[in-house]
């Protein structure tokens, strides 16, 4: 598989993961581009025998997203006092009810991340755990907790 093929095949997955993870469309677009730039530099290290390209790209996307979160935290610490952060109206995807969109928005980044990997990208527990750097059991626990929160939020909204 060439890099072009991998990029073409998994662009939507990476974008979707980053969009749900960051809950910011513009940030997700930027981070998607950064992810593929970094992936291109690291492509020589990719070993198809160790895992599929999608998992590898998600791992890079996660690192890129975490870097973004860190820099964003530093920035907001400086700027939060001067002006409150701007709330951007974001849609997680076509076909989701407004209640579910709102419930997803209320989840933490970590919870959205695990939902994106396990539900949106439909990764199995082992693969998602590898991307997250945790054990599969821990991954499943996080997913259940996030889904329960969503369920409760939807129940309250109903």
């Amino acid at each position: 598989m060439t890099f072009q093929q991998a990029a073409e095949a998994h662009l939507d997955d990476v974008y979707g993961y980053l969009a749900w993870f960051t809950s910011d469309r513009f940030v997700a677009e930027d981070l998607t581009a950064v992810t593929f730039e970094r992936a291109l530099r690291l492509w020589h290290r990719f070993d198809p025998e160790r895992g599929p390209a999608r998992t590898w790209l998600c791992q890079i996307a996660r690192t890129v997203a975490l870097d973004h979160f860190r820099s964003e935290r530093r920035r907001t610490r400086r700027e939060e006092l001067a002006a409150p952060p701007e709330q951007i109206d974001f849609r997680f995807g076509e076909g989701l009810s407004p209640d579910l969109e709102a419930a997803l928005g209320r989840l933490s980044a970590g919870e959205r991340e695990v939902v994106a990997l396990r539900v949106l990208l439909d990764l199995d527990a082992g693969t998602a755990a590898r991307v997250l750097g945790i054990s599969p059991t821990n991954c499943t626990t996080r997913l259940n907790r996030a889904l329960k929160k969503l369920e409760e939020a939807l129940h309250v909204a109903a």
Partner: protein
Amino acid sequence: MSQRDLVAELRAARVEAPPEVRERVRLVAAAAPAPPRRFTWRRAFVVAVPVAAAVAASIVFTRPSHHEQTATPLGRVAGLPATVRAAPAGAATKELAVPSAKQRVQVVGTTLSLRTHKVSDGVKRAVRIVTSLGGYPVSVHAQTEGKEATADLTLKVPRGHVQQAMSRLAQLGTIVAENVDVQDRTADLNATDRTIARLQKRLSDLRAAKASKAQVDALTNRIQALQRSEAATRRAAHYATIDLHLETPQAAAPVHKGHGPLHGIGVAFRYIGIGAAYALAIGGPAIVLLVLVWLAVRLVRRRREEALLSR
């Protein structure tokens, strides 16, 4: 809404990258160079195994074998004088024949090394044999150390019985080594006889010519010295000297068959094992410390990550 419905709705969500992102990524991917030949362990293994085999084969087959190393000493043994015969360990050989001519004056010296379980008895019997043949022991040195015993005897036997003595002594044990040395002194003695006859004739001439007493005495002394030397030679020739060495059998040494073709590899693995043991002993605590540090760093990083993503 049940959790199953919730998951189904989430899965139904379509998230597609906007066209501008798609174009941007396409541009990035277009800059990708041709994939280089990837280094894989399988590829490295395919190259490394034949190379290692070739190196090992060159080491194994070019190093001198043990048999070649031992060839030189064996060659030296073969080059020894014919009088020395080294018998194989544990194998009895026939004693050497002692060439003897009774009419001639010969100085005979023999050495005999025997291996016997009873060195002390061997000494006694050797002395008895020599005495029975009209000989006598000149010196006897016996030594015992643990289960090993040795004895060195110097025996004198009338020259006429030396062959018989050697035969009987050889029966005391297993012959390990044997040496016979015969020096014919007849020609020397004949020459001495002629010198004495010439000097005696000269002495009688001097007496007839009424020479000075000093001249006569000097000549007489010289004749007597020659006669004493001749007598000593004849006495020495009358007895043959037998140096007898007795020893207990040594513990059988393991038969060294030389090294097999894989000996070098075995030695290499042994040294690698020793090195690994040292590395483990020295590097073990360092590795444990590094692992602990790594675990601590991982824990801190994960905590920070969780805090970062909890918002």
